[in-house]
């Protein structure tokens, strides 16, 4: 078995006296794509912060491979309007050469906004800029916080396509918070469902046929996963509206599943 690049053991985190994360243990292996799902307030962003070492856990340990190179794509950044900074200047701050970041910008279709102040680009453009910056790091672990949030469905598919191609090219592991399971499922190695603790985790396709998994999640889940698999089969045919309808129902469904399992556990 390969050595984990990030290893969380028995993590507990409190915020303002409230339990945010409870007894989380999670390993991330080289080249693996881990999707983190869960309802609002489940502690997804907190978990990312722990992995990024922006925060220390109250209990448990976060181990990272020594010298691990991490790239992070936040949901957004707010650059002080008093700081004159073009998109190009922002990319150059990564330390990459002009040729390198120009090529990356071409690939992410942001070449035409390089001269604009970074404060004035739209939300969707900023996400591409941030992904470009993360990509320029050539990291071993790419951490993404809802990389396609607020983007239309075609943009989402494109975004995840880009992430996948960066992953293949750089051979990096990816840890991302994502609600767009139907889009990421095809390439996800492991789904971690979080609701303060880890409700469930595993490869969706493999485990969907596993009786123990069905038992763990109760009825209905397997069907839900069957839908995912179906989408996986038709990955290349994704078209806006149809998927959009599904997406909403599925998002609420996965949240509902977490809650349902919570209830069962309590009982």
């Amino acid at each position, binding site marked *: 078995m390969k050595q984990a690049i990030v290893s969380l053991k028995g993590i507990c985190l409190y915020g303002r006296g409230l339990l945010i994360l409870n007894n989380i243990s999670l390993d991330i292996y080289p080249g693996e794509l881990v999707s983190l799902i869960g309802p609002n307030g489940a502690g997804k962003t907190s978990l990312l912060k722990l992995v*990024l*070492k*922006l925060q220390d856990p109250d209990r448990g340990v976060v181990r990272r491979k020594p010298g691990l*190179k*991490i*790239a*992070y794509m*936040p949901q957004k*950044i707010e*650059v*002080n309007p*008093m*700081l*004159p*900074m*073009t998109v190009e*200047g*922002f990319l150059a*701050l*990564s*330390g990459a050469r002009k040729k390198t970041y120009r090529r990356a910008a071409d690939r992410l279709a942001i070449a035409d906004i390089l001269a604009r*102040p970074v404060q004035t680009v739209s939300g969707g453009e900023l996400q591409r800029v941030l992904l470009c*910056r993360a990509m320029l*790091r050539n990291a071993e672990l790419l*951490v993404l916080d809802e990389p396609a949030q607020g983007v239309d469905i075609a943009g989402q598919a494109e975004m995840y396509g880009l992430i996948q191609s960066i992953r293949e090219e750089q051979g990096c592991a990816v840890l991302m918070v994502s609600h767009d399971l139907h889009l990421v499922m095809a390439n996800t190695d492991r789904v971690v469902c979080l609701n303060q603790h880890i409700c469930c985790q595993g490869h969706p396709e493999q485990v969907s046929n596993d009786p123990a998994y069905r038992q763990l999640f109760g009825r209905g889940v397997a069907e839900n996963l069957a839908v995912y698999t179906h989408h996986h089969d038709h990955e290349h045919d994704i078209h806006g509206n149809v998927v959009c309808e599904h997406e909403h129902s599925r998002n609420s469904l996965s949240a509902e599943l977490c809650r349902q399992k919570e209830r069962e556990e309590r009982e």
Partner: protein
Amino acid sequence: MIDMLWVPVCAGVLLAIIAGPLGSFIVWQRMAYFGESLAHASLLGVALGVFYQQPALLSTVISCVGVAVFLGLLQKRVNVSINTLLGIVAHSLLALGLVVSSLLPGGQINLEALLFGDLLMLDQGSLMVLLVVVLVVLLYVSVYWKALLNIAVDENLARIEGIPVDRLQCITLILLATAIAVFIHAVGLLLIVSLLIIPAATAQGFCRTPLQMVLMSSILCLLAVAGGMCLSWEADTPAGPSVVIFAGALFFLSITIKQIMTVKQHKREDIQY
């Protein structure tokens, strides 16, 4: 006359040189209130210096750096908005300084010189100190330019990318405190921060890159220093406030120019359509 003037002229030039990088970083990191707190702390420093019979420059530097470190530590531990905290600390320190200096035997502290500075009364020794501080700040900013900009853009992103954010911020604070402390004797504690940030704020609207802003702030500050010192020489007005008047005038002039430029641009676009 030249002999009398070269020290204040050099001090003014040094101020302009340091106002570019320092003023820009104060504006970018939203540290204006922070600078004000440090400046307010200097009165306490001077009073303690008199009490312990130490040179004013040394005691001001020590007190400013001390307050900077104290504030840096406090900020991480107290759950109060930073501006509220700075408002409290700045005025508590000013009050403390006033009380301590009132307890000292009369006439030992020239309060007016400390509040408003006296560019024309600087000696060569102080000038050398200013020169050293300016060189150190320039060296620091140029060596860590990229890292400092990364921190100004987004602290978390900088931290994740392996930049030693805490260490650099600590050094920035100490250098800022030192620079403010040494320049207070030239331009006064009430005006030092405005002299650093007004040129930067003026330059901001006309620049596309951080480096442009730094250079342009220095040039604008130089203009303000030149204008202010001429006024001070001709009309015998206090030097520090005269310089600030010119800096302020440049700022409002720049807003007007910007406004006219925007209107003209709109008109041009209208014609095109």
